[in-house]
């Protein structure tokens, strides 16, 4: 394959991977930005969304309403975890919040392992056949799922941008992540903003879940862990807490991963994750707060 086609092909792959990481990383960054909480259960929102989609598909529901219901379910689960697990420990030391989110994650995963089964399920029933249609153009092949991933992510970015700049709760969210005292003094309703952050973040993770599972073709109760880890790395590279940073970091990571696989000798390419984390370390050595990050701020 000529080099240009090869580069174009890999760029498409990197964009897809980066998009999914970005969708997960946004929710992670949003919650961290306002609560200083690293939400380990965020990957499980993806997983639960996929199972919701799986069972809805079994009822014969068509794809579009299925996606809408799945997104709603993910948002509700995000709100539920906040209400039940995170609100009681709000303002507690970081370690307490961290352990709480780890507990929530382990709890959700084990409920699914016990109630449903640890055995992977096929996602084929959910993702419509046209997902796999491949278009060839000048030697570059792009499948519908790739196109949908890139376009859906772009649309969600635009919606997110409108949300954080044009809506009261979105502007309040940015204000809260910047200055807790001032947010209090202007009378921002913290509960409402925090609930919105969990709802929006989880909804995006739900979309990411469907896209991720559609590519892999299967789902299992622990499927959220790897994307969560990658999204976390992405958010840290970009500057943790910053939404723009999370998106930027996600694409940097996506490109790094895809091009490492492409250019490393085959012997080393199975160590790609090791190289990814090496990249993380290098970025943090140069810019301890990430590419777009600023120094520490107050937490709720």
């Amino acid at each position, binding site marked *: 394959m000529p080099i240009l086609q090869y580069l174009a092909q890999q760029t498409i792959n990197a964009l897809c991977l980066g998009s999914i990481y970005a969708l997960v990383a946004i929710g992670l960054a949003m919650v961290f930005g306002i609560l200083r909480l690293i939400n380990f259960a965020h990957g499980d929102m993806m997983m639960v969304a996929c199972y919701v989609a799986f069972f809805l598909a079994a009822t014969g529901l068509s794809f579009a309403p299925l996606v809408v219901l799945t997104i709603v379910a993910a948002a509700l689960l995000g709100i539920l975890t906040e209400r039940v697990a995170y609100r009681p420990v709000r303002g507690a030391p970081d370690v307490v919040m961290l352990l709480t989110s780890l507990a929530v994650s382990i709890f959700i995963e084990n409920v699914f392992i016990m109630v449903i089964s640890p055995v992977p399920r096929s996602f084929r029933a959910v993702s419509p056949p046209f997902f796999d249609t491949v278009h060839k153009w000048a030697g570059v092949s792009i499948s519908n799922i790739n196109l949908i991933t890139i376009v859906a992510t772009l649309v969600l970015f635009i919606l997110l941008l409108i949300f954080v700049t044009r809506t*009261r709760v979105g*502007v*309040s969210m*940015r*204000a809260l992540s*910047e*200055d807790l*005292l*001032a947010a*209090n*003094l*202007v*009378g*921002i*309703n*913290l509960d409402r903003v925090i609930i919105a952050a969990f709802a929006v973040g989880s909804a995006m993770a739900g979309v990411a879940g469907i896209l991720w599972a559609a590519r892999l073709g299967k789902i299992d109760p622990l499927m959220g862990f790897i994307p969560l880890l990658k999204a976390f790395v992405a958010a840290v590279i970009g500057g943790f807490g910053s939404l723009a940073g999370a998106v930027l970091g996600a694409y940097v990571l996506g490109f790094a991963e895809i091009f490492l696989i492409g250019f490393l000798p085959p012997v080393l390419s199975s160590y790609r994750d090791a190289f990814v984390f090496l990249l993380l370390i290098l970025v943090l050595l140069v810019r301890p707060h990430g590419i777009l990050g600023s120094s520490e701020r107050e937490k709720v």
Partner: protein
Amino acid sequence: MLELQSVSVSYGSIRALREVSLSVREGELVTLIGSNGAGKSTCLLAISGVLHPQRGRILYQGEDITRASPFEIVRRGISQSPEGRHVFARLTVAENLTLGAGPRRDRAGIERDRRWIFELFPVLQERLGQLAGTLSGGEQQMLAMARALMSRPKLLLLDEPSLGLAPLMVQTIFEVTRKVRAEGGTILLVEQNARQALEVADRGYVLETGQIILEGSAHELKHDEGVEKAYLGG
């Protein structure tokens, strides 16, 4: 309108306020003066509900707001321009003002108050689209006051509005304080600049290491020997 009854606030084992009692009547401009670390800001943060007193009560319009949340207190009509300005640096001036309008829903009223704010601080209108962090110190102070005024507070709390500003800017800030007061606003003003504060105030309290050591009309305090020595550089 506002009454603190033997309010005590501690940070851990450090007592920042001891048995502080003070009151602000409707339409008054009351100043709280004292040196650095006397507990002035703590007092305002307790009124705003950001800190909760361990002992004592805070009454506002006859109701107990000691345990109310900051959000609830702004809704009741108390807003604060905090020490150190605390504008939202990465938000635009316009967004800062919108957030200041807080829980209000009366669009027409908000629009009217925006125009009023631009009359008080014409420079803010020119800076609407700019990020607040790029404003000068004086402009940020104006924005902090403007943001607090956007909620149409019945009681305005001003914490060190003149701190670190050039003399001309200090004049502007006190000028606006006077205007807000003249339009029927009630103000509790915390200041290190005691001379200026007593110039504009009706009454004053002197806070020292967390306790009120003196209170009286602004006129009395200005001519009090102790106050003159300690705070007016006389």
